């Protein structure tokens, strides 16, 4: 989940312009080594020592950014920062991310039509469509693009019907 703080750091990271592989490598190291995150987040450990660890492990073009995160005690927010960073990157490429939850997986033709619809509606050149199977929807699908949610699931219809029936 993106927070305002994470969004601001992501903007700084984008302006810093590190290589994509440096970012992905850092993400992998930090997600796989929870002990390392604990060490870098520990206020008792001296700044100098933390910086030495960063210099030893991470790529040159992302070191300074990680050192700032360490100094500001926000290394745990790196995941969130990357989430926001991805949005900024996609924006710069005039692309958008969307999520499709379904019960029965749509065929490729339907997926293409959904992508075209999103491109036209949001005036983008490309879509990264994340697919997820969700049987709790009973039937139909739910498409989430940014803040907007297009619900054509049986679950959504039943909940709307319930609201209509119990509305005073």
């Amino acid at each position, binding site marked *: 989940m993106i*927070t305002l703080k994470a969004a601001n750091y992501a903007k700084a990271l984008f302006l810093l312009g590190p290589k994509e592989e440096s970012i992905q490598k850092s993400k992998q190291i930090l997600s796989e080594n929870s002990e390392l995150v604990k060490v870098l987040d520990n206020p008792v450990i001296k700044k100098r020592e933390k910086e030495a660890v960063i210099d030893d492990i991470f790529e040159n073009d992302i070191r300074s950014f990680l050192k700032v995160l360490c100094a500001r005690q926000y290394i745990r927010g790196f995941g969130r920062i990357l989430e926001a960073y991805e949005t900024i990157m996609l924006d710069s490429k005039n692309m958008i991310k969307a999520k499709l939850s379904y019960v029965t997986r749509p065929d490729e033709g339907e997926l293409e039509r959904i992508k075209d619809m999103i491109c036209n509606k949001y005036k983008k050149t490309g879509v990264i469509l994340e697919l997820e199977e969700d049987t709790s929807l009973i039937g139909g699908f739910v498409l989430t693009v940014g803040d907007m949610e297009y*619900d054509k699931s049986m679950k959504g*219809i039943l909940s709307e019907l319930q609201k209509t029936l119990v509305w005073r």
Partner: protein
Amino acid sequence: MSNVKQNDIISVLKSEIEDYDRKMTVKETGTIINIGDGIAAVYGLDHAMYGELVEFETGVRGIVQNLEQKTIGCVLLGSDYGLTEGSRVVRTKKKAGVPVSDHLIGRVVDALGSPIDGKGPIEANEFFPIENEAPGVCDRKSVSVPLQTGILAIDSMFPIGRGQRELIIGDRQTGKTSIAIDTILNQRGQEVICIYVAIGQKASTVAKIVSTLNKHGAMDYSIVVSAFASDLAPLQYIAPYAGTAMAEYFMKRGKDVLIVYDDLSKHAVAYRTMSLLLERAPGREAYPGDVFYLHSRLLERSSRLDEAHGGGSITALPIIETLEGDVSAYIPTNVISITDGQIFLESELFFAGIRPAVNVGLSVSRVGGAAQTKAMKKSAGSLRIDLAQFREMEIFTQFSSELDRSTKDLLDHGNRIVELLKQPLSKPLPLHEQVILLYAANNRMLNDIPVKQIETFRNDLMEYFRTKHPQILEEIDTNIALTDELTSQIKKIIKEFKK
């Protein structure tokens, strides 16, 4: 009978389900990133509007209060149980509002308009937004019709007109609520709908008020809107706006409404709590910068509409509690400047047995004079000046033993007026009784009655009028003006009674 009802319900449900249009629903959603103390910070909902109602995944609703760059601040209108970081929030694209209908009369409801008196659901077809624009200049008419409080001290010296906003201000335990309740009781048969808004009060206090209103048959034309002390600050914050929305429903139908806000000090405190939790900058006494606007936009909705807009009115009686009689504190000065006058109640007078404990010097009604009936105006005469002179002289002569005749007369007269203005609880006086008593006092016809016997004299005199000369009382009520012929008749009857 029950079969018919069941069949009806089933057929209604069937038709509702059959007619249900299965379209795709498009929702704007956000995620909670922080929640606590009835406040939620939500990431997303980029298009949410200030004051919009949002729905959390547990079904609890909230109002958008802060719009920031990436997040919005919402106040919850219910329990935050089950809501955590990451919970979903959906826009409703509706402004917060309350259901309104004529069926509200006689009911006790919460700040969201839901019944809390156990008398079942309230039928309502309309929905009024709690925040609404005040009527414009062209829609309004000046205040000219009186709203009788039934309290002699107020109706004679600080008359209130329909559409006026008169503040009741004073320390704790000085009879502020009693004045408001007596005013509601006096509206019986006056075609006025009364709304009592309790803000941050104990449930036991509200229950007592409701039972008083019930006992005197005042619930037949009253609504009680209550946000108890145990309710969330946001509910206490919206309660007076919800009450005003209900009042507007009746005003737009050409009816006269009296609304009591008890009290706005607690309302300001609830708003301060909310604002501080929303991380708004605190100002004087830690209140936020817009605390003046909080009350001005509420009280500005009280008005009298012209005939083209139905001719209805909302008369507001906001109540403010002061600390140690300090009227120069932040909230009291704000509300004093917003309203069209104030009735200032003093602890000293209250404990001296002068009840209602109205301080004549500090109380004023800025527009009510135009609404006072001619009869009342004529009979009240110089009452206020006489009382002011009496108070001045009373202090001046406190230590002197020898007094000249004119000073003694002034003190005697003053003492009798003070005694006459004392009025027990829940005993509002009708207009004709007020006119006769004031006439008697101003024409020095009480000066030969011992001060301690004034109350008995007053009761006996009115009983005499009611039994022997009811036509005089009727004439005062119907004519409203006090003709010379009528005054001479009243004078004659009082003299006749004294014999």
